[in-house]
Each structure stands twice: as structure tokens, then as C-alpha cells.
């Protein structure tokens, strides 16, 4: 059994460049935030963070293509990690653009800590995509999770916000416990935490593969990751937390956390535990089916749009699991493509909802949207585009994403799962299109006034809409990128 040695690794800045940039920006924002008087310089902190994220994004694109294992295998730099970092940077970018507008009406969010936590959460997410060691995954997961627990409860003057943060924290800690226990069992079986070495050990010792201990470890890890991606039956926290958290954060949680957790899930299950694929496929098939069905069916009866999107996020986790069940390179590429598409779509939708935020409350009931399509035509148009994408109607990106996921399942022989996926998409049409119908075909009922949005959020929404249409109409650029990322995954 390998001893846990203490080795000072060689410093490899390139392997952690985007994360390092994000961390430095986070610290700078924190310091600037402390030194400037509260509530004064309204959006400078946001713009400062924005610069950091953009630089990180550029550095990601520049190092894309390099393959290296750094820090004794703790950090893997390959196309896969670059793609995840790309998604994380885009998610953070759009969240900040939306927050700069949102914070004008919720001054409590306007402080260094807010952006600092956002950036540290991004660091954690990004590391989950590049971690090559179970320990590293756990550290990254906790960095991400703790930042997000705090962000969820950031509106500390609202009981609902605090309640949601508390729930998320308690259940998250609970799930992390399972995950850690799972890691321990795997370590106990194989004697290593390094993903590549675990795989090598199992190849050398096939008798261990079907030991109860390893199987138990896999079960518990499924719980831990399943909690983060909002998989049934570990999804119960999602609606309450999404509803209670500040709207600017909800989209971040739905997309960033999902992307990071799926990244780690793919790495652990396909790199380290690829030998067990035949064993997990059955239960994951069932979970994928239940997750998307439960998510969609319950979303039907929601009247609060944030809650509706929470259930929709559960359903999308189900679609993503379809790609996971397919298990092929095609399925994995499909997951990456879908995660990016979902990031643009969901952040766009939450960005629109956040537009209606103002002092003393928000408009999140579906009835509040009645007639807004004609009252604010551009906002209505943007929301319609995002809803079409969620529902998977061409030419929006959601269609191509589902196309790749379901076709990968068909090719891998899971025809029924693909059929259920399509049926679920049809069910989901109802509640997504209801938003559009309410916006355009209902008379204005309430006196909903949208404060004039700042330029930042408009830019953010335009980016999201362009992303959705670009990925839907010309999917090949990102699709090729996703395929190459999966091909270039360090094994």
C-alpha cells in the first residue's frame, strides 16, 4: 500500500493558470472591497472581477490543447479540463454581468465578499474539472460548496434566503459525508487516491473490482455527486434553495455547480472506475429516467418561475445522465456540449428574471409576466429564445444538445431511454411555452415595472442569446471542441 508521502511538487503555473488568475482576482476584490467605503463605488468591484474572469477565459483558450499531469497527478491539464474551465468562466462572466445590475436594488450584495465568494466558487468548480486525485476533487468540491452556501444566504435580511442557505448547508454537509466515505472505501480497496493509478490497480487486480467494499464506495460516491447535480432522489433541496437564493446566484448554482459536478463524475467514473461500467449502467439508467421524469412532471404544476426552473434543472440533470448512461465518447462529448448550452440558456433565463428585481422584492410569479412580451419587447424576445432552448426547439442550442445526448444513447443501444427522453421533452414543452404564452397572449394583470437595466446586464443577455443561437445554428464549432476535449482526456 502506498504511503501518503509529503512531497513538495515542482511549481507548474501553466497547469493552474486560470485558477490562479481567478484566485488572485478574488483576493484583490476582497482587499479593494474592504478599503472602499460600503455602498459607495457601486459597480467597480463587479467590473474588477469581470476583468479577472475575462483574463482567465483568455488564458484558458490559450492553454487549450496542452496535455500535462502536474503536482504529482493532483492537477490534470487536458482538453477536458480546459472545456470545463471555459464553461465555468462563461458562467461566472454572465453571473457577474447580471449581478452588476441586480445589486443596485439589493445593496447588501454590493460588497467585496460577494464577488470574492463568486470567484472562489469558480476556482473550486474549475479545479473539479482538472482534479486527478480524489482528495483534490473533495477539496475543490468543498471550496465551491462553501462559497455557494454563503452566497445562497447572502440576502441576510430575508428569512427565505437564510433558510435556503441553511438547508443547503445541512444537506450538503450530509452528502459530502457520504462522498468522503465513498472515497475512503475506494482508497481502502485500491490503496491510492490517484484516478489513473486506481484504474491501473484495478486492471492489475481484477478480483478487487467486484468486492463489496469497492461497490459500497461507488454507491456512496454516486450519492455525493448525485446530490450536487440534483439527481433523484437527492434533489429535494433544489427548489427551496433556488427559490430562496438571490436570483443572480440561482443561475450560477444551476449551471456552474452542475458542470463541475458532472466533470468530476465523468473523471471518477470513466477514468478511475471504467472497469465497473457494466455494473453502474443499470441503476444509472433508472436514475436518469426518474430524474428527468420527476423534474418535468413536477415542474408542470409550479406557479413560481424560479421554482419551475429549479425542477427544470432537475430534469436537465436527467437528460445529462442519459449521456452518462450511454457511456461512449459520443455521450461524454454530448454532456460537455449540453453543459455549455445549458449555461447560456439558464443564465440567460435567470438574467431576465433578475431584471425585474427591485427594492423590497422581486416578481417571480408566473402571473407577473403576463403581457410583458409587448411591454418590454426585447426582454420578451430574449426570454422566448431561452425558453425555446430549454424546451429543445430548433434553432436554439437546447435542440442540438438533446440531439447529441439522445442520439448517443440510441447508438449505445439504449433506445428506450432515448424515447423516454423525447417524451419528457414533449411534456416539458408545456411549462416552458407557458411562459411565452403568458408573456405574449395574456393581458397585463399587475403593474410590473422593470427598472431600466444597466448596460452590463444587457451585454450579458446578448452574449447568452448569441451563445444559444450560435450553438443551435452552427453547432459544429463547439461540438468539435467538445469531441476533441473528450478525446484528449488524460487516462
Amino acid at each position, binding site marked *: 500500500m502506498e504511503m501518503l508521502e509529503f512531497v513538495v511538487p515542482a511549481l507548474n503555473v501553466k497547469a493552474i493558470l486560470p485558477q490562479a488568475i481567478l484566485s488572485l482576482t478574488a483576493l484583490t476584490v476582497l482587499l479593494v472591497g474592504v478599503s472602499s467605503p460600503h455602498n459607495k463605488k457601486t459597480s467597480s468591484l463587479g467590473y474588477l472581477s469581470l476583468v479577472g474572469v475575462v483574463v482567465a477565459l483568455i488564458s484558458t483558450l490559450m492553454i487549450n490543447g496542452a496535455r500535462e499531469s502536474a503536482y504529482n497527478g493532483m492537477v490534470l491539464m487536458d482538453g477536458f479540463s480546459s472545456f470545463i474551465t471555459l464553461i465555468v468562466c462563461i458562467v461566472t462572466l454572465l453571473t457577474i454581468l447580471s449581478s452588476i445590475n441586480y445589486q443596485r436594488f439589493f445593496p447588501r450584495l454590493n460588497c467585496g465578499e460577494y464577488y470574492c465568494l463568486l470567484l472562489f466558487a469558480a476556482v473550486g468548480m474549475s479545479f473539479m474539472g482538472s482534479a486527478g486525485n480524489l482528495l483534490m476533487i473533495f477539496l475543490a468540491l468543498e471550496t465551491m460548496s462553501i462559497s455557494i452556501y454563503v452566497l445562497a444566504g447572502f440576502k441576510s435580511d430575508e428569512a427565505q434566503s437564510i433558510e435556503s442557505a*441553511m*438547508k443547503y448547508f*445541512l*444537506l450538503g454537509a*450530509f*452528502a459530502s459525508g*457520504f462522498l468522503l466515505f465513498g472515497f475512503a472505501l475506494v482508497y481502502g480497496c485500491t490503496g491510492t487516491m490517484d484516478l489513473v493509478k486506481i484504474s491501473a490497480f484495478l486492471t492489475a487486480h481484477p478480483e478487487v473490482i*467486484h*468486492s*463489496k467494499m*469497492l*461497490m*459500497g464506495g*461507488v*454507491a*456512496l460516491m*454516486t*450519492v455525493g455527486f*448525485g*446530490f450536487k447535480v440534483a439527481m*433523484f*432522489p*437527492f434533489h*429535494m*433541496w433544489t*427548489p*427551496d434553495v433556488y427559490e430562496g437564493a438571490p436570483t443572480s446566484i440561482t443561475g450560477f448554482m444551476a449551471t456552474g455547480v452542475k458542470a463541475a459536478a458532472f466533470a468530476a463524475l465523468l473523471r471518477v467514473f470513466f477514468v478511475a472506475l471504467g472497469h465497473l461500467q457494466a*455494473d453502474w449502467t*443499470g*441503476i444509472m439508467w433508472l436514475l436518469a429516467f426518474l430524474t428527468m421524469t*420527476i423534474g418535468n*412532471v*413536477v415542474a*408542470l*404544476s409550479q406557479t413560481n418561475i424560479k421554482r419551475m426552473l429549479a425542477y427544470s434543472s432537475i430534469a436537465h440533470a436527467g437528460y445529462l445522465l442519459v449521456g452518462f448512461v450511454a457511456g461512449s465518447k459520443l455521450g461524454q462529448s454530448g454532456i460537455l456540449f449540453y453543459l455549455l448550452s445549458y449555461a447560456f440558456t439558464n443564465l440567460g433565463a435567470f438574467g431576465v428574471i433578475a431584471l425585474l428585481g427591485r427594492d423590497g422584492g422581486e416578481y417571480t410569479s408566473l402571473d407577473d409576466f403576463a403581457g410583458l412580451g409587448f411591454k418590454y419587447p426585447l426582454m420578451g424576445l430574449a426570454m422566448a429564445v431561452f425558453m425555446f432552448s430549454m424546451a429543445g426547439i430548433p434553432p436554439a442550442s437546447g435542440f442540438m444538445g438533446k440531439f447529441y445526448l439522445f*442520439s448517443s444513447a440510441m447508438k449505445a443501444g439504449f433506445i428506450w431511454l432515448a424515447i423516454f427522453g423525447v417524451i419528457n421533452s414533449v*411534456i416539458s414543452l408545456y411549462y416552458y411555452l407557458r411562459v411565452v404564452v403568458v408573456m405574449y397572449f395574456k393581458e397585463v394583470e399587475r403593474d410590473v415595472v422593470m427598472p431600466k437595466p444597466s448596460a452590463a446586464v444587457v451585454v450579458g443577455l446578448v452574449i447568452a442569446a448569441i451563445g444559444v443561437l450560435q450553438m443551435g445554428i*452552427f*453547432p*459544429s*464549432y463547439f*461540438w*468539435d471542441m467538445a469531441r476533441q476535449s473528450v478525446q484528449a482526456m488524460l487516462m
Partner: protein
Amino acid sequence: MFDKVWLIPIFPIIGVLINGLLGRRIENINKSIIHWIACGAVALSFIVTCILFFQMLGLPADQRLYEFTWFDWISGGVLHTYVAYQIDPLSMLMCLFVTGVGFLIHVYSIGYMETEEGRYYRFFTYLNLFMFSMINLVLANNYLLLFLGWEGVGLCSYLLIGFWFSEEANAIAGKKAFITNRIGDFGFIIGLLLLYTSLGEHGIWTLRFSEVFTHVHLLSPQVATAICLLLFVGCTAKSAQIPLYVWLPDAMAGPTPVSALIHAATMVTSGVYMIARSNILYSMSPFAMGVVATFGALTALFAASIGLVQNDIKKVLAYSTVSQLGYMFLGLGVGAYAAGMFHVLTHAFFKALLFLGAGSVIHSMHHGLHKIHSHVDAQDMRNMGGLKSKTPITYVTFLIATLAISGIPGFSGFFSKDEILWQAYSSPHGHFILWLIGAVAAGMTAFYMFRLVFMTFFNECRAPEGAEEHLHESPKTMTVPLMVLAFLAAVGGYLGVPHALGGSNRFERYLEPVMGLGPEKLLHKAGGAVAQGAHAAAEAVHGAVGHAAAAVHEAGMGHMAEAAHHAAEHGSMFAEYLLMGISVAIALVGIFLAYTMYIKKRDIPEKLANSYPFLYRLLLNKWYVDELYELTVIKPLHGFSVLLWKGVDVAIVDGIVNGVARIIGWFSGVIRYIQSGYVQSYAVSVVLGTVVLLVYYIIKAIS
């Protein structure tokens, strides 16, 4: 420079984006910015096209093909499609007149639409979108992109037909165009799929022109015929041929510049372009070519006969367009692809001019009638007359176009129409009957066009009292395009003066690289191969003596063939002159009849109508085709759909759907109840899930 071809479509789409997104605001600030953007975009496209065109002319004829891949579009499985453009003589020709004529019509629209308030920006956005789609259609290097453009121009067409959608007739006309074109597109897309899969059977998965045409000989004749016919179904809708032409006359409900641009000069010729582009494919199927020629000839005659008695100035021109399109298909069908394309070009000039001239007349009439608050129909020729002196520029230019379309020697229409008629007679695919139909239709054309000119511009003004003094010439933005087009309509024909008239038919030679693999050359190639095979066999069997004999024989045959060829050429020259003379004579008779009936003895038309009421009503009511379709297609379909609706849909489908929806709704409510909000119950759910997972994996481990 060829790799800058993407600039051509990019300008109009930029125009669409600016005017489409910000148009409403720009219009509030200053209306003229909108048309500056729209016209400027098309002008830039035209300039780029010209540059590329002349660059291409600088190359030797066999190198005039350049394909430019802009970006990957769809790639999945065996299907790889690119947004890729092709520069060759055919695409450049189309692109030149599409952007050129398009630009003139854009400029004209400034004057025509000046009174439009609030939707001015929308009009120019649609026009630019149309230009973008049309450019994609003609520049595409594969069938899929062509189809995209094909649908795009269709979309713009419906939008613009129904532009004044608040009037019900216009909205209905838009719907009619939409439905008719759906039928055609159905055929078209099935044809494409058949082409794609049947080439795929030979391992060639492609829709790229250059690849398709080099491998098309792999297809069996039956499959080639099926593909050609299916594609032609698409053409009958888009290019308004029997039996799907019915939408085009109604499409005149749209603004007149639209009629000129889309429903006369460019979009409706895209079917002709498509077949000319696919000439190698069509050459494989003499049957399909026969069908194309027959439908073309019949349409030419049929539509011309309807045009004889119509009183709405735009309706006459609409049926004339249908008829002229028939000529083009006749040309294609007899294998004279270049002649067909030549007519596309000259027709674009003179028909755009006719429509714009008619628009100018209508504009003037509207103005006059508006002044005296009269509600008389401004498009009815019975209310016009004597406009010659009121609108002199319009009159002169209109007359030039009329001379051109009637086939008077010297004007553009003469050269192209005559080339088609001659080929219809002389080509191996042609027939005397086809020529005869074409010639009779030409006489009708001359008659109805001059009838239109006489009724509109000559005699006394029949407009209501007081309107006459308010009739005046249209603004400069409208008359200048008229003059430019008049010049082109007059001289455009000299591009392709036939050999018989001492020319060298430069037009045909220009298109040769694209039509290069025409039937003759293919036959020639095949013949060569056979001869070679026979030659080798002869050598093997008969040895050296046999070889020598064969060589002598071959040489003799060669001389004889040459002599025969010369003789044939002389004979055909004479025949060509003769036919040319006859068709001109027929046209002159048509003009003379029109002159007699509408200038000299103006009571004749009424007398004729009274003595042959049946024939007159038949023509006036357009052979009752609309009524026939109503009775045979629409009524039964409507009845059937009512049956489906009341019987099947409401009773069975709705029952099931509502039932399922109710069950799902109930289920949704139940689960919602479980979502209590208590952390403890959530934790219980996590634990239960964990237990199930653990049990599952432990069972897996044990088994």
C-alpha cells in the same frame, strides 16, 4: 480575391440586422437612413460581384471554377455540409443580375414606398433578407444550401405578398403562395433525399454539385428520371408552371417593386437556374427533359391565352411572367440550357422594367384618384388611357420593354426567345409541335402586351372626372431605374447574337464550362470509349490487315461525316432564317390586331366578347382552374379534415390527451405535496436513496 466571395451575402444580412433590429427607432429619427442602409448594402454586393466577375473573365475558360468553403455547417454521421460558395460562369451570371436588378429595384422602392408610415423599415428589411437568400441560392456549391436559399426566398415572398396584410385578399394570397409552394417543396426535398441516398448506395455521400455531377453516371436511368421529375415538381411551384402556377397571379397583391423583383426577375427564375445547374443530371433522362419541355410549352401557351383578356394591369404582367417562364423551361427541356438562361437574363431586364413601369402608372393613378377621393380601381386599365403625355418617361421605357418581350428584332427578347424557338425545333430533343406552340404563344404575347400599352397610354383618359389633371410623372428615384433597365432591355440581347445572324453567341460560349458536360459531349465520350473497345477487339481478331482496313474505313467515315455536317449547317441556316421570319411575322400580326382592336375600331373587343361569350368567360375566368382546384382538391380535403377533427380528433385523440394530462397533473400535485420544506424529510429521502444504491451495488458485488 475569390476567397472574398462571402462578402456578397454578408452586406444584405448586415442590412437586415440593422434595419430589422433598430429600424423602428431609425424610422422615427430619419426615414432616409433606412433606405440608404438597404440600398447601400445591395450596391456593395453588386460591386463585389462585378469585381469577382471580371476577375473570373480574366481566367481561361476551363479554370473558371472556384469553390470557397466558408464554414462547416452540419457534420454528423455521413452527412457533412458546408456553407460553401461556388464561383463559375453560371453562378456569377445569376449573381450579377440578381444584385444589379435588385439594386435598381431597391432604389425604385424608395419612391414607391415613400408614403408608407411605420412599416417602411420592415419593407426594406424583407427586401434585404430576400437578397441574402437569393444570393445564397445562386452561389451555393451544394444542394442543401441551395435549398436553404430556396426556402428563404419563399419566406420573403410570403411576407411581402402579405405585406399589407390588413387587407384580407392580400393575406389570402400570401397563404395561397405558401401552401402551393409547400407542395412543390415536398417534391423537391424528396428528390434531394433520393439523390443523396441513391448516390450514397455507391458510397458517395454528398450533395456538392461538383461531386454529384462527376458521379451522377452511376445512377440508373430510372432513378435519374425520378430525381429529375421530383426536382421539377419543386420548380413548378417556385417558377409557376402548370399545375402549380396558381399562386403567382394572386401574388401581385404585394407592393409592385416586390412583384418586379421577386415575382418576375429573380425568385421565380430560380427553378430555371436549378435545372440549368443540374443539366448533367437532366441530360441523363430524355423522358424528364421531355416532361419539362412539354409543361413549359403548355404553360407558355396557356398563360398567354389568359393574359389576352385581363383588365388588371398587374394581372396581365403576371400571366405574361408565367408564360415567359414556360419559354425558359421549354428551352431547358430541349437541352438548350444556355438559351434558357439567356432568356432568364433578358426577361429579368424587360419584365422588371414592365412591372416597375406599371408601378409608376399605378403610383400616378393612385395619386390622381386620391386627390379627388375616388375609390375607382387604380390598377384597372379600363380606367386609364392617354397617359402617354402625362408620364412620358414611363411611356417610352415601357414601350421599349414591350418591344423586347414581343420579340421585335433588335431588342433583347428577340434574341433569347428566338434562340429557344429555334432549339425547340432543331434540337434532338425538340419537335415541330413544341415550336408551333411557342410561336403561337409569341403572337399572343405581342397582342396582349400591345393591348396593355394601347389601353394604358393611348386614346383618351378614362379616369374619373377631375383626376386627370393630377396625373403626373413619378419621382426621380423611380424613373432613373426605369431608364437604366430600358437601356438593358434594349441592348441586353447583343450578348448572345446567334451564328445565323452573324454573331458568335458569346453568351453560349460563356456558359460552356458549366454546360460543358452536356448530352452531346457525354455521348461523344461514350462513343469514343465504344470505338476504342471495338478497335482493340478488331486488332486482336484480324491482326494487322484488319487493323489497316479499319483505319481506312474510319478515315472515310470521317470525311463523309464532315461533308454531311457542312450540308446540314447550310440547310439549318436557311431553316433558322425561315422560322425566325415566321415568328416575327406572327408577332407583328399580334401587334396589328391589338392596334386594330384597341386604337382603330374599339368596338371589336366587345363584339367579340358578345359573339363568343363562352370563350371570353373561359379566358376571363382563367380557364376556371382555381374553381377546378377548389372542387377537386380543397372541398374534399376540407370535408375529410372536418371528419378527422370532429370524429377522430375531438372524440379519440383529445380524450386520450386530456386523460393523460389529467393523470400527470394529479401526479404532479401529489409529488408537490411530498415536497414539504422540512430538512428532515429531505434528509430521509437522501438516506433512503443511499440505502437503495448500496443494496443495488452490494447485490452486484455478490452476484
